[in-house]
C-alpha cells in the first residue's frame, strides 16, 4: 500500500519549483508586468545554483547564488521593457531562449557531476520546501496587508493613476521583476540541487511555463498559486507512480500528463473567468502594457 503521508511529501517536493516560480511571477503580474521569461530565469538559476553549490560544497550558497542569477537575468528583461519600452511578450520569449542557450553553454563542464548533499528538515523534507510553503502567507500578507503591497497592486491595476498620485511605476515594476527573477532562480535550483541532483541541459522542461499558467489559474492570489502548484505536483507524482507500477501505457504518453493537466486547468479557469463576471476581472488592469510618462 502507498503511505498517504509519503505521497503527500513527494507531492510537496514536486510542487516546490513551480510554487517558487509562480509566487514570483504573481508579484510581477500584480505589478502589471507579464514576464514570459520564467523558464529562462529558472534554468539560469538551476545552473548557477548547481555550480555554486558544487564549487562551495554548500547547497545553501547554491540557492543564494540561484536567486542572484535569476534576478540578474530578470534585469535584462527589466531594462528592455522598463527603459527601452520593448514589447513584453517578445522580451519574455527572448529571455527564455537566451537563458536556455546560456545555461547550455556554461553548463557543459558540469554535466555528470553529483550535487552536494543537503541536510533535510522536518519530516526529512528539504528546508527549501518549507521555505516555499512559508512564502505563500508571506506573499499574501505583503500584497494585502502592507503599504508597499498596496502600491504594487495600484501600479498593476492602473499605472496612469498610480503615476498621477506620484508613485514610481518604473521603480515598483523593476523591483517586482527582480523579485520574480530571484524566486524563479530558487525554483530552478531546487530542481538541480534537490531533485535531480545533477545538471542536465534543458532540465526545467517547461516548469516555467507551467508556473505562468498557474498564476492565471490562481486568479492572481497566493493561496490560489499554492493550490495550482499542488495540483501540478499531484499529477506529476501520480504519473511517476503509474510509471513505476508498470501500467500498460507507454511512458511517453504518461509523461504528457502534467502538460495536458496544465492545459485542462487553464481552460477551466479561463472559462470561469470569462463566463462568470463576479469571479473574473481579477487580472491586473495594466497587465502587459508598457508605461511611459511625458514630463
Amino acid at each position: 500500500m502507498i503511505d498517504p503521508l509519503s505521497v503527500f511529501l513527494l507531492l510537496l517536493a514536486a510542487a516546490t519549483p513551480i510554487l517558487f516560480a509562480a509566487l514570483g511571477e504573481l508579484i510581477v503580474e500584480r505589478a502589471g508586468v507579464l514576464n514570459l521569461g520564467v523558464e529562462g530565469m529558472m534554468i539560469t538559476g538551476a545552473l548557477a545554483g548547481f555550480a555554486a553549490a558544487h564549487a562551495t560544497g554548500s547547497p545553501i550558497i547554491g540557492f543564494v547564488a540561484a536567486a542572484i542569477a535569476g534576478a540578474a537575468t530578470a534585469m535584462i528583461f527589466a531594462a528592455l521593457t522598463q527603459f527601452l519600452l520593448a514589447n513584453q511578450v517578445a522580451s519574455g520569449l527572448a529571455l527564455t531562449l537566451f537563458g536556455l542557450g546560456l545555461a547550455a553553454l556554461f553548463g557543459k563542464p558540469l554535466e555528470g557531476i553529483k550535487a552536494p548533499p543537503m541536510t533535510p528538515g522536518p519530516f526529512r523534507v528539504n528546508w527549501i520546501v518549507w521555505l516555499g510553503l512559508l512564502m505563500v502567507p508571506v506573499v499574501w500578507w505583503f500584497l494585502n496587508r502592507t503599504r508597499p503591497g498596496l502600491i504594487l497592486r495600484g501600479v498593476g491595476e492602473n499605472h496612469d493613476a498610480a503615476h498621477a498620485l506620484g508613485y514610481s511605476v518604473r521603480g515598483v515594476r523593476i523591483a517586482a521583476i527582480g523579485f520574480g527573477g530571484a524566486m524563479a532562480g530558487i525554483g530552478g535550483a531546487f530542481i538541480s540541487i534537490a531533485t535531480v541532483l545533477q545538471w542536465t541541459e534543458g532540465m526545467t522542461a517547461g516548469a516555467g511555463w507551467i508556473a505562468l499558467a498557474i498564476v492565471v489559474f490562481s486568479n492572481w492570489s497566493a493561496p490560489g498559486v499554492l493550490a495550482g502548484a499542488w495540483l501540478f505536483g499531484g499529477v506529476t507524482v501520480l504519473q511517476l507512480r503509474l510509471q513505476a507500477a508498470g501500467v500498460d501505457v507507454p511512458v511517453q504518453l504518461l509523461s504528457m500528463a502534467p502538460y495536458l493537466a496544465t492545459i485542462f486547468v487553464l481552460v477551466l479557469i479561463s472559462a470561469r473567468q470569462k463566463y462568470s463576471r463576479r469571479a473574473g476581472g481579477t487580472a491586473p488592469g495594466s497587465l502587459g502594457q508598457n508605461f511611459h510618462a511625458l514630463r
Partner: protein
Amino acid sequence: MTKAAVFRAEGIGKSYPGVRANDDVSFSVGSGRIHALLGENGAGKSTLVKMIYGLVRPDDGRMLLNGQPHDPSDPRAARAAGVAMVFQHFSLFDALTVAENIALGMENPPPRRELAERIRKVSHDFGLPLNPARRVVTLSAGERQRVEIIRCLLQDPRLLIMDEPTSVLTPQEADLLFATLRKLADQGTAILYISHKLDEIRTHCDSATILRHGKVVDSCNPRDHSARELAAMMVGGEMRVIDRSGRNAGDVLLRLSNLSLPAPTAEGTALKNIALTLHAGEILGIGGVAGNGQEELLAALSGELRSAPGTVVLEGDDLGGAGPETRRKAGLLAAPEDRLGHAAVPDFSLTENTLLTAGPRKGLVRNGLIDNAAARRFAQDVIREFDVRTPGPHTAARALSGGNLQKFVIGREVMQAPRVLVVNQPTWGVDAGAAAAVRQSLLDLARSGAGVIVISQDLDELIELSDRFCALNEGRLSDPRPTEGLTLDEIGLMLGGAHGMEVAQI
C-alpha cells in the same frame, strides 16, 4: 474685505517639443474663493494644474503657496504642502476597495480600521456617503467622484484643484457638488476650478482666469459677463453661428424595437428594450451621463454588437444580425467616440484609415483586393472637403490634432452619403472651430435627407443640434421629446436626476 492669497502663480512657462503649453501665466487664488480656470481644449489648463500638483515641472516662473515658494518635485511633495486634486479622468483603481483607493492618495494613512471609520464619518458629514469596503468597479460615476473628493478632504487641503469635475454629472448632481465646494470654501479652503462650461462658472465661481493658447487673456469676475462674452474671450473671436435651416422630417428611415443586449464586458452596461424611430432629415439627440450605455448603443448600431432579428430595421432591411460591413452597404454608418483606437487606427495613415469603413461604399476594395490609389483619392477628398489640417493622406492618424482627426473621421462617414449616421460624442475634446464645423456637417447631412443620431454628454450640443431629445439611463432609452422648449432642468430629470446625492450638511 480682502482675503489672503493661498496660491499665486507668477510668470509660469512650460514648453513641449513644438508647443508652448504655458507662457507667462500669472494668477492668484484667495482663501475661501472658488476660482475658475477657463479655456478651450488645448489652452494649457491641464499642463498648468499638473505643475501645481507636481506631475510636471515648469520651465520658467515661480509658484507660491501660503507665501512660501511652491516647487513640488512630485505629487507627494505637493500633497504634503497642502495641495489636493480631483482628476478629470479619475485616478482610481477599479479592482481595489474605496478604502484602499483613498489610502493610496494619502501620505500617511492611518491603520485600516481607523481609516475606514474616518471615511465613513467624513463622507457622511459632507453628505457624500461611501462604504469603504466596496470595490470601486461597482460604483457609479458620481460615486467614484465622491471617492476622489473624500480622498482630498481627508488631507485637509489648503488648495483643492478640480479638473472638469461636472463632465460626468447630471445638472442636479453638479449643483450638489457646488454646494459641497461652497461649504468647503467657507471653511477657508481655496478652490481652483477648471472647466469650459460657461454657465456653471458664471453661477458658482467668484473669480476667473481665462487662458488661450497657453496665455492669460483676461481675469475677471465671471458674474459680470455674459456667457457669450466669456466664450468670445476663450475662443478669441465671435463664435460661428450654426445654420439649422432647410430641414423637413420625412419618412421613417430607421426603427429600433425591443433591442436588448447583455453587457459586453464586466464594466459595460446592458441595453434594455431600446426602441426608437428616426425620420429622414431628422437629428435625434441622445443624452446621458457617461457609462449609461452610450458605447453599447453605438456598437449595437454599427454592428460591432449583433442583436436579435427585427431589432434594427433600416428602410425595411432587417439588420439585427448583420455585421458592420453589411450595415455599411445598406447605408447605416457610425462614428464612435474614441477617435484614436476605435474610429481610427493611430499608427495607420489617413489613406489606410479610409479602408476601415469606406471599402464597400466607395469601391476601395474589390474582391478582397485593396485599391490603394482610390483610397488615397478618397482620403484627399475628405481632407479637402472637411478642411483637415495635415501634410497629406500619408500622415499617421496619431499625428493629427484632436479636432482635425475628428473632422477626418466624421468626414469619412459623411462623404459616404449614409442613409443614417450615428455619432457618439462628435465634438468631445475638440477645439471650438472644429466643433462648429463638425456640427454644421451633421446638419447639412440631415438637410440632404439622411437621418442622424447624435449621442452626447454635452447638453448644449444636443439642444443646439437635435429636433427630438431622449435620455439614456442605465441602458434604458426614454421616450423622445421635441427639443424646442425643453429646459436644462427637465433634461436633468430625464437623465436620472441626482442619483440620490444629498446636499452637503455641515
